[in-house]
């Protein structure tokens, strides 16, 4: 795998692991069993140059990571009068680095997660958190949605296709 893509993958994983460790369980969670745990899994398909990586936690969820003061600012920035849905909140969280809200570089981790997708031949980042979902495809194509039930935590999934994926299996 090209070194740049490999570096970006590692950076993206470090940020996602850091979030799962630092923010996911800082308050009581929806599903109070297995506290403070998080999981990582990967699947490599060298024949099709495809790779999938998953990181899961059962924490408070990204919509709840936003502090109340920040939440209000986010509502103002995106011009929301009603309470935003979880999907909209996840999307906002991924864009926070563009704002001057100054929350210790919050949102930059998501930018790392997107940058990995941008250097692969093709790929998709999906973030499911509580009732919301957010999808990022290469070159800034993004969408978000809301669902009836909560997954009770956060699942981050990268699916990428990259010509050099096969080399990983040799490393």
């Amino acid at each position, binding site marked *: 795998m090209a070194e740049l893509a490999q570096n970006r993958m590692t950076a993206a994983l*470090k940020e996602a692991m850091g979030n799962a460790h630092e923010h996911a369980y800082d308050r009581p969670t929806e599903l109070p069993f297995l506290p403070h745990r998080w999981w990582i899994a990967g699947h490599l398909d060298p024949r099709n140059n495809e790779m999938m990586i998953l990181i899961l936690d059962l924490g408070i969820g990204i919509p709840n990571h936003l502090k109340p003061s920040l939440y209000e600012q986010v509502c103002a920035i995106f011009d929301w009068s009603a309470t935003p849905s979880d999907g909209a909140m996840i999307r906002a969280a991924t864009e926070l680095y563009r704002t001057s809200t100054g929350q210790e570089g919050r949102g930059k981790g998501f930018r790392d997660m997107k940058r990995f997708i941008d250097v692969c031949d093709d790929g998709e980042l999906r973030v499911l958190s509580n009732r919301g979902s957010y999808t990022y495809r290469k070159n800034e194509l993004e969408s978000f949605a809301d669902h009836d039930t909560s997954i009770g935590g956060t699942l981050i999934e990268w699916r990428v296709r990259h010509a050099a994926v096969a080399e990983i299996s040799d490393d």
Partner: protein
Amino acid sequence: MTEKRVSLARDFSMDPGPRYKRQGPYSGELFREQIVKWLKAAQHLHIDLDGTTGIGSSFLDEAFGGLVRDEGMSPDDVRRRITIKSERDETYLLDIEESLQQAASQRV
């Protein structure tokens, strides 16, 4: 003027870690403390970021933005005393510059 040349990969870690020391080894916080020690011994520091497995934004933010947030330096102090090189991934340089500016705006 005394100068010091250091490499993140060689002189700190090939595998830079999370933001804070409490989160794990080779954190941005620990690297910031190392930078402060180097800056006491040399007037100018050259830091080479190439050669690692990959650096997360929060590591860079804590290491360099933290110089402004927690060590009392201004963004200009940092720019004047530290030259940073990153050829493989130039986004690191943009991220660091952004962190310096954000840290300065938070301090006011």
